[in-house]
């Protein structure tokens, strides 16, 4: 049985914090990302997981708020820091965990790991180990929608650092000139690895870069799930109506190091602490409680439920078979139907 949070689909544009159902789903989504990654962090620390890992803890409102603007049939492309996007689009937590644990039951059968989770069934065209690698791919998937005449859109996630890659430039321009149904969601967490946006660009906002392509650009408080949802929902509506792409910049922050080898020398403890006070989950929880949409107890119950799901994902994944070397050679190419 699938072990997923149930993402919001087809929501009407009202703030996520306004109704119990949407508040519940949003909170569950953000908590799932947080707890999934905390679990992964600890498995890694205990030597039970290998490779490297990029955690999005602190950025949950961006992934969950953005995905809430999508329909089930829409697509996403994601990044090396992509667990949130997968979960936001409805991925099975056990299959994600199994992938990270290099199991045959993982999304990539243990061949891809954290940086390559894809899930055709939820429209997730893949995380990507290449910075900006998913941006042209998103443009292409959107071109296909336009050519086929569907009303599906593609949401393309990437970081601030990715906007310095040529791939960003070429792909956003293609999407602009062809009015493609794609939403470029930049998660500006202030650093590309160690290099701050203050140093890597001379403009203040990533959204300013939209001007070079003649498309709208908007800067959003990325730790506010309502704000992210509102901006992305507008962009999705634009895209679905055939009016082309939007560049949405979610200002956020990653609490953890870039990856496992990061000593955080390029930023101060104070900066990290400051941002921890802007915790997107706490912010959203407080709001819904204040608004009387959910009670503290209800919120705690959601958290407990997610904890159960994450625990289940670990125990199920751990006992799954390791990925199988025997099938490798036959897996490089897709077989031709009927033979060649």
């Amino acid at each position, binding site marked *: 049985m699938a072990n997923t949070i149930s993402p919001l689909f087809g929501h009407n544009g009202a703030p996520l914090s306004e109704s119990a159902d949407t508040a519940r789903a949003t909170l569950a989504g953000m908590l799932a990302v947080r707890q999934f990654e905390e679990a992964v962090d600890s498995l890694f620390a205990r030597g039970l997981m290998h490779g490297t890992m990029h955690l999005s803890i602190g950025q949950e409102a961006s992934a969950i708020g953005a995905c809430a603007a999508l329909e089930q049939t829409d*697509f996403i*492309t994601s990044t090396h820091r992509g667990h949130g996007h997968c979960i936001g689009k409805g991925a099975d937590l056990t299959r994600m965990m199994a992938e990270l644990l290099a199991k045959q039951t*993982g*999304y*990539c*059968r243990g*061949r*891809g790991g954290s940086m*390559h989770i*894809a899930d*055709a069934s939820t429209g997730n*065209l*893949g995380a*990507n*180990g*290449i910075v900006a*690698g998913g*941006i*042209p*791919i*998103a*443009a*292409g*998937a*959107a*071109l*296909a*929608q336009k*050519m*086929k005449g569907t009303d599906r859109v*593609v949401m393309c996630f990437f970081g601030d650092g990715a906007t310095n890659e*040529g*791939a960003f*430039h*070429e*792909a956003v*321009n*293609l999407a602009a*000139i062809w009015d493609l149904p794609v939403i470029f969601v930049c998660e500006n967490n202030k650093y590309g690895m160690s290099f701050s946006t203050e140093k890597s660009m001379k403009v203040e906002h990533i959204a300013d870069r939209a001007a070079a392509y003649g498309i709208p650009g908007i800067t959003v408080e990325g730790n506010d799930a309502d704000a992210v949802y509102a901006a992305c929902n507008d962009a999705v509506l634009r895209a679905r109506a055939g009016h082309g792409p939007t560049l949405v910049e979610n200002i956020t922050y990653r609490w953890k190091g870039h990856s496992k080898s990061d000593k955080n020398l390029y930023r101060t403890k104070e900066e990290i602490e400051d941002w921890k006070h802007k915790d997107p989950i706490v912010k959203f929880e407080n709001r819904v409680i204040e608004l009387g949409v959910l009670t503290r107890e209800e919120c705690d119950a959601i958290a407990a439920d997610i904890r159960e799901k994450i625990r289940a994902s670990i125990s199920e994944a751990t006992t799954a078979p390791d990925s199988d070397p025997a099938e490798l050679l036959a*897996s*490089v*190419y*897709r*077989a*031709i*139907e009927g033979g*060649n």
Partner: protein
Amino acid sequence: MTDRIITYSEAIREAIGQAMEADPNVFMLGEDIGIYGGAFGVSGDLYHRFGADRIRDTPISELGIVGAAVGAALVGMKPIVEIQFSDFTAQAMDQIVNQAAKIHFMLGGELSVPMVLRAPIGSGTGAAAQHSQSLEAWFAHVPGLKVVMPATAQDAKGLLLAAIDDPNPVLVLEHKLLYKTSGPVTEAAVRTPIGKSHVARTGKDLVIVATGVMVSRSLEAAAALSEKGIEATVIDVRTLSPLDMEPIEEAVRATGRILLVQEAPKHVGFMAEVSARLAEGKSLYSLEAPIKRLCGMDIPIPYAPQLEKAVVPQIPNIIQAVEDLIREP
């Protein structure tokens, strides 16, 4: 349907036209392929037949274009990308190698990238070092890609049709000097199988293995050698990855002598692989002379016509190499 004599360019165009008629998901993407008709005139009138949507002109953004093709392919389209000169694949290597080639495997097998990338290779047009390379070795070295090099008009059509059918990314490397050459081509949409080397000529004295424009040069050399009493088998590799060694090994067993001819620079080029495969198998014991490679010099392609000719194998060089090889102890 019957055969007609048409050019290599026309054969490619015909293949694209037939594939686009048969499958609405097939479309073309590239620089100046629309009203301009393509830098080498290959897309020609397809724009007028299929419209700007499916014969899609793009800005000068190779990385973006190839990436867009990858994305479109992932969701069920069958894009054919034209790169104006194969040298500009350098711009798009990330999408070709790190994305297209690896996605099917790396993402666990559910997704795949049925994309075709066409690119003109080779020297001989006076376009100098940045517009004349033969980079097939790069792509053949990348697991997950298939690489074909049609040497005739028929194969230009047949391999392209097979590439479009293929659910994997296929690079079709077309030699510029071949575009205007002609040959018989079936009207029907007949596929040339990917992954099969082709024996283009049979002779008892030695085997010449060649790719791209070197196939016709080798055949011409073989004809000239025949008048001198030397009979060569000529094998057109056609698919560089996956490579079919079977007919090559058979010919070596039959003749004992082999000449490998490519336009690309020799060092770490494709023919090194053919040589290495022979040297690591039983065929080694059939050799009556060392394996000989006749390749491009390890030099960027120069502009001056006499220099350009001097750095890649020409027919007289092939004849000479064969005569040397036959004389080996």
